[in-house]
């Protein structure tokens, strides 16, 4: 169980939506049009479950586990996508496909 830090969850009325093409890392978090906060948690994926040559971490939406491990989260063309062992996955509104 990884820690949930303050930046991983909304702290109040959202004032800023992350620009397109921003990626975490190096950004700390991504905020989408719905005000959801996306961040990488502190739980390491096994290296066999991570993209080759990278650490991967649990993907959090508003501090809640999405069940995915990824090395990057990106906001591109209004969609949230993550880079996983299986390649890029896009958030459908319910899960990553």
């Amino acid at each position: 169980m990884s820690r949930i830090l303050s930046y991983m969850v909304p702290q109040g009325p959202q004032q800023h939506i992350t620009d397109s093409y921003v990626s975490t890392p190096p950004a700390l978090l991504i905020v989408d049009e719905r005000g959801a906060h996306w961040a990488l948690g502190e739980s390491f994926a096994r290296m066999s479950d991570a993209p080759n040559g990278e650490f991967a971490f649990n993907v959090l939406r508003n501090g809640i586990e999405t069940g995915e491990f990824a090395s990057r989260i990106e906001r591109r063309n209004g969609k949230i996508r993550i880079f996983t062992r299986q390649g890029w996955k896009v958030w459908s509104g319910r899960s990553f496909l």
Partner: protein
Amino acid sequence: MNEYSVGGGGITLANQAVTLAFINPAAAPNVNLEILRCWIGQSANATSAQQRVQLETQVTAFPTLTSATPAKLKRASAASVITGGTAGAAGTSGINASAEGAGGKTAIFDDAFNVLNGWLWVPTPGETIVMPAGSASGFGLYLPVAAATLTNWSFGVNYREV
């Protein structure tokens, strides 16, 4: 593996260059510290501003800090060999320096970020920074120029004892 975190939240910085977090390995023989993650964010406002950041090492004289005890990232872990301290001495950690100390700093990474997005540094497995026990220098997360907004900063450094 025992992993720990040193950091703070809701911090008000001094209007100057500031060492946000400083961890000095213990005297040898002891465990080495492998730096796994560093992050910085602020929640004071939604004003876009660029901010420089450095990962650096510093030799004595070390910064004057607010004591910060490393938090365990795994509940079953023993307490870290690093303990909270205000002087940056070997085997101690602290945050939010009030004075930087006269010791020379050596930058490892220089970067800049937009404060709206925050900053997260995660190395690849081959890029982790290892601070050996008995090292003459400590590891710092450092803002080399004063932040435009001084309130409500959060930051941290995660490390593993190896």
